[in-house]
Every structure is written in structure tokens, then in C-alpha cells.
């Protein structure tokens, strides 16, 4: 625990897409920190600095240990992208299967014994032979955690470690961190204040650099840095008053909001109101002999809002992809959606036109360089990226959404340079923009800070009140209950 890290007037640049300025921060022995703040303020960037990422432009950074364990969405996305890249060179006409989980965990592992123990605790044993990139969001997260925890780190940096984990795993992980707290210092990025472990001693609060001088702005535009953040304050948890004030700061009231209108010119075919939106009969998904979903019956009537929950790997995303048509096995199941009995000559675009959809998998797939505004407009076309000319109406509606999200200033910036949380907000707007008959929100709040989470939850409530959209909401966090959702489906791990 004998570390002492000092950031002294440090400015760091991240590939010219983000800038952290004039950081002054000390992490002393026996301290554990939580880094929190608004979306896009550079929480993850600050954590990444401690993992040696970014280009130091001025100031000094000292005392960084050499072996840092890092878990973050960015690192996860990078790993997935690497795996996907292995796939796309099939001039050879061969389908590559990707790296298996056991190789991801045990190759170059410094503490195989602990890794083995964690694999069991996280319930990863049955997945060891599966390809890493075939795992669900929660499962990939767990692999990342096992890798970091079993690397004998001198410093552990966990960027949103609890997001995407089911309740049982979350408790287990918190206990494990508690147990190792006296052997390894930790810096944890958290969007949810209420998830702060007891052993945390200090809190760092990050804020966006919003009002900047003209010169600074000019300097920034020249360098085309799309965002910058600063370390606004650090608080010792024992200082009750300061701690309380910070808590207040993070729970600002969400303003009265209204959902921007749909585009009257993008009209969908009418649905027969007497028929359900979705009807799955004895739906099953199998890979070889492994059964992921077993004989599920599920009917979603129009206007009947649903919440879907279940532990990681229980097949939530698989079930959703049967509805959206993204799962190849939707052709071997008895599925009725939006008036179509699947497998009778309909195209997936005829299905997708009725759906607004957001999930972590979508965010990974949304790897195209297009502007923030176009990302919202692409929701009218159900495409990833824009391949159609947008109408003036659609542009106006997109502007209203940007305004609502507080991202008007970033309308023309490239989507792939935004922080994970800001990307998430835009994808939520993309899903909602056409007021779809079915809105599927698969853990929409992952990566969002407290304020934006409140905003998104409020938006979903508003949409539930209206008549045109049926909401299907998937989450782990019990506290994110939505008013208006009265139907629940729980999946078990089979």
C-alpha cells in the first residue's frame, strides 16, 4: 500500500479528442478514491491517466506503479474491437471463431490460482471454451474483472465496475474488493453515488469545462479537441459537511421536460390494434448442445409496458434479438411481430421500422464516424450511420433532442470521439426519435451519471404515459423502477 501518486499541474491530451487541464491531485498511502462527476467531464480520462494513457502536455505525474489493473468500458470496447478485427479478413472465405475465454484469462495471468477462484465465483466456468466476443455484455465485463484482479496489481483502477452486473455478482464483487482493500489501493469511477463501497476514503469530483475564455476556445478548436474536463474538487469522506454538499450537487433536480414530437412525414404502416405487438411461442435458442433460452412463451400487447430482468447470461439480450430480428434463430422459432409471422418473406427492415432500440451491443456496433446529429437522425432509418439524405424536419427534431440532452454544442462533432456516457445518451435519443410502437431499452442507463440517469428515467416515464409507444425495459438495478411499467418477466439461467 506504499504508494504516493502526485499529479502536479498536469495537462493531458487524449488523441486530440479530449483534454484534461491543470490537474492537481495526490493519492497517498492507505487511500481509496472514488472519481465521480457529470458525463463527459473526464472521469474515465482521469482514471486512464493513472493507467498511463494519454499524452502529457505539461506538468508532472509521479509515483505511478508499473503494474496497474484497469477495467473500463473503453478497454473492454478496445478488446472487443481487436477480436472483431480478427474476423474481417476472410478473403480466405473462412469464418474465424475468435479467442476463447480461457485464453483471455489464463494467458499471461500472474495469479492463476486467484483467477481460477474468481472464474468460479463469477460463474464463468461454463463459458471458458466460448469465444470471448460471443459473450453477453455482463459476461465480458466479468472476464475483464477477473483479468485485472488476478494480475497482482499495485493499483487497481475500476471504471464503473458494477455496471452491467446482476445483483448476486455485484454483492460478491463488493465483498471481494472489501477483502483486498488493505492490500491494494483502488481508484473507482462511479456514476452512482449510492454504490460507493464503505472502504472508500476520498472522493474526486470532475466537471466539464463549460465556460471558457474566447482564447481558450480558439486554442481548442484549432486542435479540434472535442471536450475537456477538470478536477473540480476533492473531498475527504470524513468531512461530513463537504461530503453532504457534494451529494447535493450530484442530485440536482431534473427540469420539467417534454419529449420532442415525432416526424409527421416519416409515417409507419398502421398496426391492427386487436393483435399483440409480439408473440413468442415456446421460443428456444441453442448453440450446439447449450440451451440459452428454453421454451419461452411471451406476449406483449399494445400499450402494455414490460420490464425484463434476469442474471447475466440468462439470455435477456438473446430474447430481445429474437424480437428485433437480429438473432439468426428467429427463423427457427414461432414468432409473431407487428403483424408478421416470421419467416414468411418479410424483410428485417419491415420489422425494424416499428422498433426503437438501445443496448450496449448496439453501442459497440455503432463504430462509424458520423456527427452526433446524424446519429439521432439515423433512428428514423434504423441504420448504423447515415446513408440517406435527411429532411429539414428530421434535422429540426434532432436539434430539439440535442437541446434536451444539453449537447447542442456538439451537434456536428464526430460521435466516436465522445465519452461512453455521452454516446449512450445520443443512442437513447436515436431509439426514441421516431416514437416507435415498441421501444426496447436494454440497460439504457449503463455509463450514465446520476443526473443523466434521472433525465433518461424521466423521459421513459413520459413515454410510458403516452399512448403510441409500448416500452420494454431491461435492467438489473432495482432502484431504477419506472412508473407505468406493470408487467414483469424474470429470466433464469438455464
Amino acid at each position, binding site marked *: 500500500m506504499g504508494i504516493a501518486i502526485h499529479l502536479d499541474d498536469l495537462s493531458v491530451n487524449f488523441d486530440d479528442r479530449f483534454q484534461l487541464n491543470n490537474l492537481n491531485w495526490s493519492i497517498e498511502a492507505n487511500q481509496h478514491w472514488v472519481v465521480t462527476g457529470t458525463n463527459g467531464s473526464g472521469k474515465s480520462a482521469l482514471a486512464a491517466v493513472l493507467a498511463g494513457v494519454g499524452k502529457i502536455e505539461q506538468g508532472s505525474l509521479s509515483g505511478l506503479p508499473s503494474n496497474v489493473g484497469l477495467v473500463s468500458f473503453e478497454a473492454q470496447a478496445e478488446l472487443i474491437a481487436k477480436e472483431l478485427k480478427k474476423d474481417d479478413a*476472410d478473403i480466405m*472465405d473462412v*469464418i474465424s471463431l475468435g479467442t476463447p475465454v480461457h485464453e483471455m484469462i489464463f494467458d499471461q495471468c500472474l495469479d492463476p490460482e486467484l483467477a481460477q477462484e474468481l472464474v468460479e465465483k463469477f460463474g464463468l466456468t461454463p463459458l471458458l471454451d466460448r469465444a470471448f466476443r460471443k459473450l453477453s455484455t455482463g459476461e465480458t465485463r466479468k472476464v475483464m474483472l477477473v483479468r485485472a484482479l488476478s494480475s497482482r496489481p499495485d493499483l487497481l483502477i475500476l471504471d464503473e465496475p458494477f455496471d452491467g452486473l446482476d445483483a448476486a455478482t455485484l454483492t460478491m464483487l463488493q465483498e471481494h474488493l472489501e477483502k483486498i482493500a488493505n492490500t491494494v489501493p483502488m481508484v473507482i469511477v462511479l456514476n452512482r453515488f449510492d454504490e460507493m463501497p464503505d472502504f472508500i476514503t476520498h472522493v474526486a469530483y470532475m466537471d466539464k469545462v463549460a465556460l471558457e475564455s474566447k482564447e481558450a476556445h480558439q486554442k481548442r478548436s484549432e486542435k479540434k479537441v472535442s471536450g475537456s474536463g477538470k478536477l473540480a474538487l476533492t473531498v475527504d469522506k470524513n468531512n461530513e459537511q463537504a461530503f453532504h454538499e457534494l451529494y447535493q450537487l450530484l442530485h440536482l433536480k431534473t427540469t420539467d421536460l417534454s419529449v420532442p414530437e415525432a416526424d409527421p412525414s416519416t409515417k409507419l404502416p398502421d398496426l391492427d390494434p386487436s393483435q399483440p405487438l409480439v408473440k413468442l411461442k415456446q421460443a428456444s435458442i441453442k*448453440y450446439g448442445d447449450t440451451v440459452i433460452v428454453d421454451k419461452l412463451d411471451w406476449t406483449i400487447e399494445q400499450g402494455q409496458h414490460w420490464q425484463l430482468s434476469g442474471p447475466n447470461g440468462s439470455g435477456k439480450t438473446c430474447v430481445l434479438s429474437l424480437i428485433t430480428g437480429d438473432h439468426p434463430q428467429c427463423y427457427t422459432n414461432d414468432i409473431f411481430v407487428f403483424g408478421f409471422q416470421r419467416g414468411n418473406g418479410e424483410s428485417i427492415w419491415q420489422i425494424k421500422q416499428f422498433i426503437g432500440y438501445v443496448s450496449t451491443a448496439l453501442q459497440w*456496433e455503432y463504430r462509424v464516424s458520423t456527427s452526433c446529429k446524424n446519429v439521432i437522425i439515423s433512428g428514423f432509418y434504423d441504420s448504423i450511420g447515415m446513408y440517406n439524405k435527411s429532411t429539414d424536419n428530421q434535422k429540426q427534431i434532432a436539434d430539439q433532442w440535442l437541446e434536451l440532452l444539453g449537447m447542442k454544442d456538439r451537434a456536428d462533432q464526430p460521435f466516436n470521439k465522445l465519452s461512453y456516457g455521452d454516446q449512450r445518451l445520443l443512442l437513447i435519443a436515436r431509439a426514441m426519435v421516431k416514437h416507435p410502437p415498441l421501444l426496447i431499452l436494454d440497460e439504457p442507463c449503463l455509463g450514465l451519471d446520476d443526473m443523466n440517469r434521472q433525465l433518461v428515467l424521466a423521459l421513459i416515464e413520459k413515454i410510458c404515459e403516452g399512448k403510441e409507444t409500448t416500452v420494454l425495459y431491461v435492467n438489473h438495478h432495482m432502484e431504477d423502477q419506472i412508473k407505468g411499467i406493470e408487467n414483469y418477466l424474470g429470466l433464469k439461467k438455464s
Partner: protein
Amino acid sequence: MANYFNTLPLREQLAQLAKCRFMDSSEFADGVEALKGKKMVVIGCGAQGLNQGLNLRDSGLDVSYALRPEAIAQKRQSWKNATENGFVVGTYEDLIPTADVVLNLTPDKQHTPVVKAVMPLMKQGACLSYSHGFNIVEEGMQIREDLTVIMVAPKCPGSEVRAEYVRGFGVPTLIAVHEDNDPQGEGLALAKAYAVGTGGHKAGVLMSSFIAEVKSDLMGEQTILCGMLQTGSILCFDKMVEEGIDAGYASRLIQFGWETITEALKYGGVTNMLDRLSNPAKIKAFDLSEELKVIMRPLYNKHQDDIINGTFSRVMMEDWANDDKNLLQWRADTAETNFEKTPAGDVEISEQEFFDNGILMVAMVKAGVELAFETMTAAGIIAESAYYESLHETPLIANTIARKKLYEMNATISDTAEYGCYLYNHACLPLLGDFMKDIKTDVIGKGLATDDNGVDNARLIEVNAALRSHPVEAIGTVLRGHMADMKKIV
């Protein structure tokens, strides 16, 4: 079987070679209608077979897979690919007689046995689809008169065909109808519907002929795509090591350099690739490439001549019949080259450094792309075809070298490409011997050692004008414009 092209009169040969037209999106207004309700049976479940099938099914079409009985009985990978994705799988005997369209997506070399097995089983008036015309044009396969024969060839690897479709887009696609086999005059309608089904119509469709496709595809793959990259890799590596540059560094510079510099080519053509260099380096690369073009032009002409008159395919098929003796020997020799045996060193090379220290590589790509394009168009192949078969596909092959070097490239490209690469490399290595003697590390390995980036204005203007006015740039600008939304995948 006789070479089909050689049986045609000159007038017809020229007409077929010159066939290629960028289709207007309004020509696809009927969507997949022509294939609606028809039974499409795919033969071959590799990356193209599987991913095209997934797209066609998602476009509302009826797709199933015919596999050989061994593949089904032993549950081979092709069987797994098809069944795990929820497709109906059966033997040729089960499925072919019911098929309205048979999609032959097997490798070239298997075409003759596959088509011979399938043809007697096909029902009267059905359609046989190819993704490459070698079997028809070079092997002279005769197809039953009642059958319609078309070609639909997405110009990207299978996984990209799928990924772009899922995004709501597609990949550029070439279609053709074999005019000798279009008894009901429905070939074009079927090919267009097929291109819509895979999403190709969104990214642009070229209407070509079997002959133009084969003669341009063969030329591209054996010269610039594979041959030039293979030859360039070996020459550049050996030169750097000879000049005392760390072998690990040299290996990395080449293995990943092709991919990096051709990425610039993909986005903005030869012009943009050269524009990534400093002005003195650009002029240097230009001069080297002009020199290379003079030396290599006879070789490119010979390759094109042999392809046009059928010598190439005859010699290759003799090797096929001789258990690939020449090819396998060469594949083994490639594995033994120093470049292949030296792993990429653990050094970081920035994106720009690949350009700065790889001036000769840039010059080689420029010379190869331009020569291949010039030779093809001089042989009567139209610019659109020539562009796709030279410049467009170079980054795809460079990508395989970045993965696992030359052995991987050769093991994974088509049989025809590998054989062509073998011929090219054999001839080109000695051809460039004298040229390489004068090469020093300023153009490969270390970069120009100048403190001053000054150049002569007049010379720079000349070079820029020459780059920008090359015909491959003119057609490239048009075709890349059609793919205006080409996305940088990060």
C-alpha cells in the same frame, strides 16, 4: 472443355471486355420481387456463402444450404455454420431438384466438379449463379441450355458483406448475365434482385460481363494485389537488413506498413496516399515509381496478354492436374524467406512513420496500381472494372499481410490469385535486381534525412498535376463518390 473466350470472334471479345456500367439506383425499384417465393439453395458455407445467405434471408428470401454428405455426417464447420444459424441443410440430392436458384459459392477450383454434380439435378429452367466467372470463361464449362446463368459478386470479404448489411448499407457489387445462357431473358432481373437481397444496391452495382470480370480480376490479383505486395515485402525487408536496420523494426514496418499506406489509398486514391508524405518525400516517391513503371511495364503487359489469350489459365490448370506441385513448392519457399521468418519487433511505429520511412513502399503501390490499371484499360477492359480490380482491392489484401504476413496471404487468397502471385513474384524479383542496388535507407527504413522540407515549386506542381490527372484518379473520384458515406471504422 475449351477456353470460352477464345471461341468468340474478336468483335465479340472486345464487346464483352468493354462491358461495365455503373447502374442507377432507380434500376433497383423492384427490390427482391424477382426472387420472392423462389427457393434459393447455396452450395458452400464459408464466409461468402454464410454471410450472403444471412443477408438474403433477412431480405425476405427463402435460403437453404446443400452440402456434401460427408460434411453433414461429420458435422463439419460448414454444417455447423449453416445449422447454428437456423438454415435448412440437406444433400445435393435433397435440395437441388427443388431449387429455383442455385448459388455456387465454392472456391474456383471446385467449380468443375460441383457444377458437374449439380447440373443434372437442377430442374428445368432454373438459375445457376456464380460469384466468379473463371469456370465459364477459362474452363469453358457448358451449362444446360434451359438454365439461366448469372454472376453476383460482392467486392468485399464475406464478413463485411454481412456487417454492412446489418448497418443498413451494403458493399459494391458486380453483376453479370452469361448471354449464352439466358433462355427466358430473366437473368438480369434475377441478378438485380440478388444484389438487392445482399444490400449491394445501396453501395453501388456494376453491370459487367463474365469475361470482363474474369480478365480484370485475374490481372488485378496477380499483379498489384498479391504479386507486387509479395515482391515488395521481400525486396524491402532484405534491403533494410542489408543496410543494418534492426530486423524486428524492418519486419514490423513492412508487415503493417502496407495496411497503413493503402488505408490512405482507400480513402483518397493514389493522390491522397502520396499527399501523406512531406513534399520532398512525395517527389522522391513519384520519381521512384516512374522508374519502377518503366522497368515493370513489360511484365504487366505479359501478364495481361497471357490472361487474355488463356495461356495463364491453361498453365495453372496443368499445375492443378499435377497436384499443385509448383504452387505448393513456392508456398513452402515463401515460408522460408527472411521476412517471413522474422517476427515483427516490439517497437512502436506511428501511423505517419509508416509513410515517412516507407517511401519506396508507397512508390511500389503507386506504380503497381497505375500499371495494372493502365494495362487493363489498354486491353479493352473498362475503367470501372479496372479500378475495382486494382486500387479498390489492394487494402483488403494488405490487411491479410498485417495479420500474418505472406504465408497467410497466399494460403487465404483464391487459388487463381495465388498461382498468379507465384508467376509474378518469380519474374519480378530478378527484374528489380539492378533497381534495388541503388536503394538506400532514406527511402526505406529511415526516411529522408533532411532538416529542410524545401522543394522546387515548379517540380512540385508538375508532380501534383501528374498524380491528380491519372485516369485511375478520375474514375476513383467518381466511384468513391457513389460510396460517399464510406465510413471509417475505428
